[in-house]
């Protein structure tokens, strides 16, 4: 009775976000296990022209709610539209990107529909016996993983962490159904007033908040030596940090020092360039999710700690790595 996997499209200012395609890709795999279809739910103003792209990434069908009141994201019109679609089309599963939009609209929809919602999933699978969606997600700041099901209520819903699921291939010219839906929206549905839309201002650097750190040590050799690291950090969307020697030598600011008398960091990636790994430094970063070390000395403590230790000259490797990442990003741009 409840059928198909719906992906609620994340669009900001008319641009469909990458997480949507990741979800379509993942939904395609799940749909295969269920023998069902992937349907994209596209909400916005003057948005219909984007629907074909969704088909090309794997949606069998796109349900479009194209209405002026959906021009900017606000909770109620979007909730109402998704709720209408769920009631009318009875999906088995609904997926959203776990963004600041997805994590605002999905719980409201779950409340209105009275169904279960699992937040920020990093893994989805169909249980071969029960055919239930198994939703795996981190809790306790990522120290525990939990697998969750929604047995009695439909649809089964999840918000999914961006950047975790694989991007599917795009098949230009692929055919799919694009259906306009009237969800009965009107300006009266706006229960908030948008006074202004602002672009984000630059935030002050706090290396303890960075998810990626490119860190330099003695091997960097001087203040200018950090420039290639900065370029790499910028390309990766991270920050630059340093062991103590860089700070003591005046090569970089103190608020970027990682270590026992500096800051303790736990980024997803700690890229240690020319850092030998004195105990006082390791104490500040040893809990990082993934540690890559580039150093000429294969016996140094940092190489022993690292998940991936590469023996080599950071001055040669770092600029090439920056270029490789830039090339990769360029290929990913849609």
């Amino acid at each position, binding site marked *: 009775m409840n059928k198909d996997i719906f992906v609620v499209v994340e669009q900001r200012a008319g641009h469909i976000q990458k997480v949507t395609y990741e979800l379509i890709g993942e939904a395609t795999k799940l749909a295969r296990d269920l023998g069902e279809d992937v349907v994209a739910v596209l909400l916005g103003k003057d948005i219909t022209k984007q629907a074909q792209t969704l088909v090309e990434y794997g949606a069998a069908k796109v349900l479009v709610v194209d209405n002026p009141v959906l021009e900017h994201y606000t909770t109620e019109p979007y909730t109402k539209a998704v709720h209408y679609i769920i009631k009318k089309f009875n999906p088995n599963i609904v997926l959203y990107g776990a963004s600041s939009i997805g994590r605002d609209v999905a719980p409201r929809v779950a409340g209105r529909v009275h169904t279960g919602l699992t937040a920020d999933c990093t893994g989805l699978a169909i249980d071969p016996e029960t055919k239930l969606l198994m939703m795996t997600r981190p809790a306790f700041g990522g120290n525990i993983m939990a697998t969750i099901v929604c047995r009695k209520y439909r649809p089964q819903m999840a918000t999914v962490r961006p950047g975790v699921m694989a991007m599917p291939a795009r098949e230009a010219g692929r055919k799919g159904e694009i259906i306009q839906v009237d969800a009965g929206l009107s300006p009266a549905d706006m229960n908030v007033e948008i006074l202004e839309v602002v672009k984000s201002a630059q935030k002050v650097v706090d290396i303890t908040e960075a998810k990626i750190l490119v860190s330099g040590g003695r091997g960097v050799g001087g203040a200018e030596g950090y420039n290639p690291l900065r370029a790499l950090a910028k390309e990766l969307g991270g920050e630059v940090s340093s062991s103590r020697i860089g700070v003591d030598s005046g090569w970089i600011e103190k608020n970027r020092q990682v270590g*026992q*008398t500096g800051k303790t960091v736990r980024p997803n990636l700690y890229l240690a360039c020319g850092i030998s790994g004195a*105990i006082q430094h390791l*104490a500040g970063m040893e809990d990082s999710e993934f540690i890559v070390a580039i150093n000429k000395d294969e016996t140094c403590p940092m190489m022993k700690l690292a998940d991936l230790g590469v023996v080599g000259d950071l001055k040669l490797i770092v600029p090439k790595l920056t270029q490789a990442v830039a090339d990769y990003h360029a290929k990913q741009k849609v």
Partner: protein
Amino acid sequence: MDFKLDKVHQLQQQLFRTFAETEIKPLAKDMDENEQYDLGLLKKMQKYGFLGIPYGKEYGGCGSDTLAYTLCMEEVSRVDASSGITISVHTSLACSCIANFGTEEQKQKFLRPLVDGSKIGCFGLTEPGAGSDVQGAQTVAVPDGDDYIITGNKIFTTNSGFADTFVVFALTDRTVPAAKGLTAFIVDRTMPGVQVSDNIERMGIRAASNCIVNYDNVRVSKDRILGQLNKGFKIAMGALDCGRIGIAAQSVGIAQGALNEAIKYAKERKQFGKPITAFQNTQFKIAELQTKIDAARLMTWRAALSEDAHEKFGPLAAMAKLFASDVANDVTRYAVQMMGGYGYCREYPVERMMRDAKITEIYEGTSEVMKIVISGSMKLK
């Protein structure tokens, strides 16, 4: 008899610990290096009630007790002994005189701004020629109509660099021993003739303000006399009894803070293939020192509870200070030793804690004076 803190005191301890770790600890090193207390930090402490803990709500205080005050002193002193003494001199020396001996009018006028976080107090008793021998005081207060004129020098007046209110002891009767001729006065910083020197350069608690105050014909009205004329000696001694509990708590804090730092370091520092804490001699030494700190803490709490029960707590306070100050010096010396060369570096806090610890055996009554007080209470003669 329950040695556990009740819920109120537990939550207060949590407040003091969190505040000390977050607000005071990051500033401690620089304040010590620059010999300058951070007045912004002081304002924060005033805002949250740290400077009026054991005084009643009817005067704008926190309505809490001496035990809570010792918890504050310990937690603060774990990270910065200078912050500890700043709070202690204000709370135990300056405020207690007015709270215990002031008229209702004086309490509303002078105690209230001190305990509600508006003003800071200090205590002018010690003179260049009168330390342990309080009776060697030479500062005089000469009557002049309805006023008194105070002339003299006080040394080592903590907080005087920025305090608003000075409780000063001066001779009003020079024909008798000082014990019978000393009077306590409440002086404002802004009164003409009050001259405060620069910070005296010291071995430790360098961030605390500690200056020579010269009273150059400072005119005070009669209503500024605290308690009765010529009855000031008792007020000073009573204040010092309170102060000693504060210093005992400060000592416990210095000791525990130093030991915690050293243990943290030693768990990570590997020599001869193991962390230093894996060696039994280190474990045994840590056990001995923690035992002593624990004993000092309980003695401090006992003195605090005795004060709150309005008993004669002087000898208990003296014992707590005597013991705790010795423990602080013992522990900090070992903390530096355990951290080796790094312990000697100013980058790490234990050398400062060792320098800070020394004064606890000296001020508010030397360890020798503590023994006079204790033996004096034991009917030995």
